[in-house]
């Protein structure tokens, strides 16, 4: 079990530098339910971003509907402002296969046409199945297919590693 707060601190530093390098002054943070939202809330505070936070529930965009159906705890997606021409930072807890991010990008583009999208994740673990990479990374982990890393929260935010069964 690991405390996630200091990883988020590191992410905040990286993100601040990246935004500065790219000359982005008014980014919109969008967290993916649930873990991504918790992290995005903390980054939002640390970077003192003015634009309100967005929240995405990608249940209706998943590519595994035909195998898993709809998550019974689905929540509304909220994007509080017009995203046309804005610079977005998509935030998630674990980047694994890349499918969640793909679904989130698809959903974002149904709201509008952003100027750019950056991806910030707490954990970049091995096992990518799509050509998707993060711009901001809290930590990297090399895990076997059966291993599971999970973020629990919102208070305290903790990373749990479950070994392969």
């Amino acid at each position, binding site marked *: 079990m690991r405390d996630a707060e200091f990883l988020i601190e590191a992410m905040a530093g990286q993100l601040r530098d990246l935004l500065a390098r790219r000359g982005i002054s008014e980014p919109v943070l969008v967290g993916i339910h649930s873990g991504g939202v918790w992290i995005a809330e903390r980054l939002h505070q640390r970077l003192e971003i003015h634009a309100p936070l967005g929240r995405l*529930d990608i*249940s*209706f*965009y998943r590519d595994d*509907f*035909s*195998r*898993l*159906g*709809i998550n*019974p*705890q*689905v*929540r*509304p*997606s*909220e994007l509080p402002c017009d995203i046309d021409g804005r610079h977005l930072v998509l935030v998630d807890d674990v980047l694994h296969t890349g499918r969640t991010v793909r679904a989130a990008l*698809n959903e974002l*583009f*149904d*709201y*509008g046409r952003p100027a750019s999208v950056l991806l910030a994740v707490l954990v970049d673990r091995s096992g990518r199945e799509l050509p998707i990479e993060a711009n901001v990374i809290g930590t990297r982990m090399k895990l076997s297919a059966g291993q599971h890393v999970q973020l629990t929260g919102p208070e305290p935010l903790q990373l749990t590693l479950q070994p392969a069964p």
Partner: protein
Amino acid sequence: MSTTHVQLDPQGRLLHFLTVEGLTRRHLTEILDTAESLHSVAERRVKKLPTLHGKTVVNLFFEASTRTRTTFELAAKRLSADVLNLNIATSSAVKGESLLDTLRNIEAMQCDMFVVRHVQSGAAEFIARHVKPHIAVLNAGDGRHAHPTQAMLDVFTIRRHKPDFPNLQVAIVGDILHSRVARSLIHALSILGTGAIRVIAPRTLLPAHVENLGVQVFHDLAYGLRDVDVVVMLRLQRERMESALLPSEQEFFQRYGLTGERLALARPDALVMHPGPINRGVEIDSRVADGPQSVILEQVTNGIAVRMAIMSITLGNHARPLEETA
């Protein structure tokens, strides 16, 4: 008495949506919460979700109804499904083909969902019992029996304004006897723990032992509307006069029509609802139907999100394996 209903799988998940009766609060809440997530989709630039991409939904209407069919069609299209509309009232069934034959033929077109409307009570359940297991059946109204998606959109609309069901008094007014909407709504409201459900109608428009459904019976509108939070008006069909259930539309409106004066007897913020289509001046006064307390058009809008939710839940449960992983 109620063994596992055909609409549930062995783990109690919805495979079809045929009736509200016998469902749990968890089922209803899941539908309402999912619908809540889908509600804002209509405000986006792209009003479409990819969820049912590649699925085919067939509107099997044995009884004509453009309005209901349209909302199901829109719901399916917003979920990216392909939609086929079959008005069987005017095609094969009349020519003597049996319902099962019709069903087999449409099944052969590789469909995933049937939305069924039929004049006979129990028709949707009959179809659900006889379709191939991968097909989900939604009841869009069967005889006098059930109209469960209408009931869900009604409670969805109520919940958005007044979420505290145990402290609500709801009155349903008019032709309860012939109303599948009323039966399904009564079940949905009871399951959600509604404080009091009243039905208000002359005796000719009430079914036998209606009180066994858990409702209070009133014959006097003014008395029955006192202090209610929600008034649901039902549509009165013209045939009721011909079958000697009522003397005239005028007398019905005088006794049971919702006017501004009568609405004033309910709570000041009482919602006025109607499943549509409205007969202005028969069951409801135009000024009330178009007034500030009316949520009738909101019901129509909400119907799409609620039907999208039910479509994605039932089709999703068909996909999901039984041994659920955490």
